[in-house]
């Protein structure tokens, strides 16, 4: 076995940011194997809120996976985002039960009140609107997850109230 290429041995994270240590540790725990790619991306998104190119390059070099493949995986899965998120996030569920019970109305209200469509962030970077395919809390449909907390049985009004509570962002 020839010695590993020096390039790969000297993989440095994109910055001094301590959060890269978490990402590096996740990969190391899985032996820096190629198969750790998705776990690495999860860890990076959890630490930074989104994925960016310098970070993906770091992951690619550490796991010895072509950057093209890393980008392929990062863009294939809906859960990964390449855009920085706003200070608050609102994820509206668009599962079947929520659809039947009016998820569209919720999205429409947010579009009217805050001027954002799913996948967008308000210009002041306060609120990001996202959609998800079912959180499995269909008994409470329609559902949204606001800053990580599930809010159920929503109406356009009660959703606006909840958003105002977390963000002080009511129009």
């Amino acid at each position: 076995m020839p010695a590993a290429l020096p390039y790969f041995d000297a993989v440095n994270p994109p910055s001094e940011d301590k959060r890269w240590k978490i990402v590096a540790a996740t990969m190391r725990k899985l032996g820096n194997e190629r198969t750790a790619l998705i776990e690495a991306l999860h860890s990076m998104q959890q630490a930074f809120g989104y994925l960016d190119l310098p970070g993906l390059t770091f992951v690619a070099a550490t796991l010895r996976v072509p950057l093209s493949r890393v980008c392929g995986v990062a863009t294939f899965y809906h859960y990964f985002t390449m855009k920085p998120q706003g200070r608050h996030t609102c994820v509206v569920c668009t599962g079947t039960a929520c659809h039947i019970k009016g998820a569209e109305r919720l999205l429409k209200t947010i579009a009217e009140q805050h001027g954002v469509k799913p996948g967008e962030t308000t210009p002041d970077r306060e609120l990001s609107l996202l959609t998800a395919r079912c959180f499995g809390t269909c008994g409470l449909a329609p559902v949204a997850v606001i800053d990580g907390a599930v809010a159920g049985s929503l109406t356009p009004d009660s959703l606006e109230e909840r958003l105002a509570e977390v963000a002080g962002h009511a129009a």
Partner: protein
Amino acid sequence: MLLEEIEALGAEQRERASALGTVISVCGAAGCQSMQSDALREQLAAQAQSRGLKPEECTVRQVGCLGLCGAGPLVSVEPSGRIYQRVRISDAPAIVDLLGGDVERIQLDPQLPFFTRQHRIVLENSGAIDPDRLEDYIAAGGYLALAKALAEMTPAEIVAQVTRSGLRGRGGAGYPTGLKWGTVAKAAGSPKIVICNADEGDPGAFMDRSVLESDPHRVLEGMAIAAYAVGATEGFIYIRAEYPLAIARLKTALRHAERNGLLGNNISGTPFSFRISLRIGAGAFVCGEETALMASIEGRRGQPRPRPPYPAERGVFGHPTLINNVETFANIPAILRRGAAWFAQTGTERSKGTKVFALAGAIRNAGLIEVPMGISLRDIVFEIGGGIPGERKFKAVQTGGPSGGCIPEEFLDTPVDYETLTRLGSIMGSGGMVVIDETSSLVDVARYFMEFCMTESCGKCIPCRAGTVQLYNLLGRFSAREATPRDLERIAELCDVVRHTSLCGLGQAAPNPLLSTLRYFRSEYEAGLAPEGAGR
């Protein structure tokens, strides 16, 4: 832990539990938790403490899903057997004062068909034990099946018993579980791998989430038994990222099981070793398909590949792989503990046992139920589910999510099993059941599912990637009342192509919601035709 130690701990825990007075159990599954059930539990405990009640007089604890998610947060009280619904934090003093007596405003009748018509095997511990406590699971007879299997049975005997039970895969397709296990057991190559598919992607389905949040050890035990039966040493649970609570509970359960020698090296003092790792999905519906799921575990895009080779021969990392759904594994400990014959008593000729369904949509009792196979859809929707809220009329029940179909009123008396649902143009699927009332347009529902399949198509094969887009656009013409009779023909032709030429189940089943609504509710499509003389 050795077999004797498990038995002793179980007996000790049961004795301790029987010495308790009032036990107030608060649901701690995701639905009720989002209705502040954690704060409610703390308040109940604080109230009990402030009244100087000792633990043997009144205990407050967390349990798994109590089932009626739409009426959360739920609280159950033993020994009185009372259940309270929509409990507010301000109700806590009254509940503690009366030690679970009549608190009329929030009282729920435990004799409701919702509770009495169920037959619980998979959910036997849901709402009865604290999912974060291994001791609770052992007190309920947990890990006995594993320890006994390791000590007293050969792998072949286990496979034979699972085969005799008639258990079929609960992920939707209904492949006989025993047959699958036998194939993996016979496959050459090592190491072998066991995967639990917890990528419950069907919107409207939450059975697996609930099982993992309420009784995680049950799934681990089922996996370990499977691993012993097929000769596997390594396991994965592939779970979707949208289920953070289930992930947390699984992590706790894995830690406890490993620490107590119920997973890891030399399980229960035998030469058998098996360890399980978690893999978190990243929001791709197609990863519920087994070959795509395995690609995802390998750190690649979740794209399916043609079969054969089947996972049993060449699965994840090229090793022989057994892959079953959460609910399938959750059935295993009960089958081993109580025997194949006992399990086969329930159900129909070809579909044995029970099925867990997630009831949602336009229905009074939204929540999680487990019923014997062969029960009629009418019983599920109108008796257990309590029917449609308001004065509205039933229109259809959707089963099987984006791969299933809509079943109309006239077939509600059909017994539920794998074959009958397929005959009706739907599928059993993983167990999501969404009730649709007269206010919803079924063209809209079909379009909703087609949009779902269109965005979730992985893009590998053309019939699915391009066909779903074209079908979605065609359906849009019906919604906009611009369709022509020729569009109806085009839909039929295109559905045929997509169904028969797509690579994996996603594409092959994508036309189902459309075809079933076209079959039973053709008039709604005809209403979408452009008016005569509109220039087309």
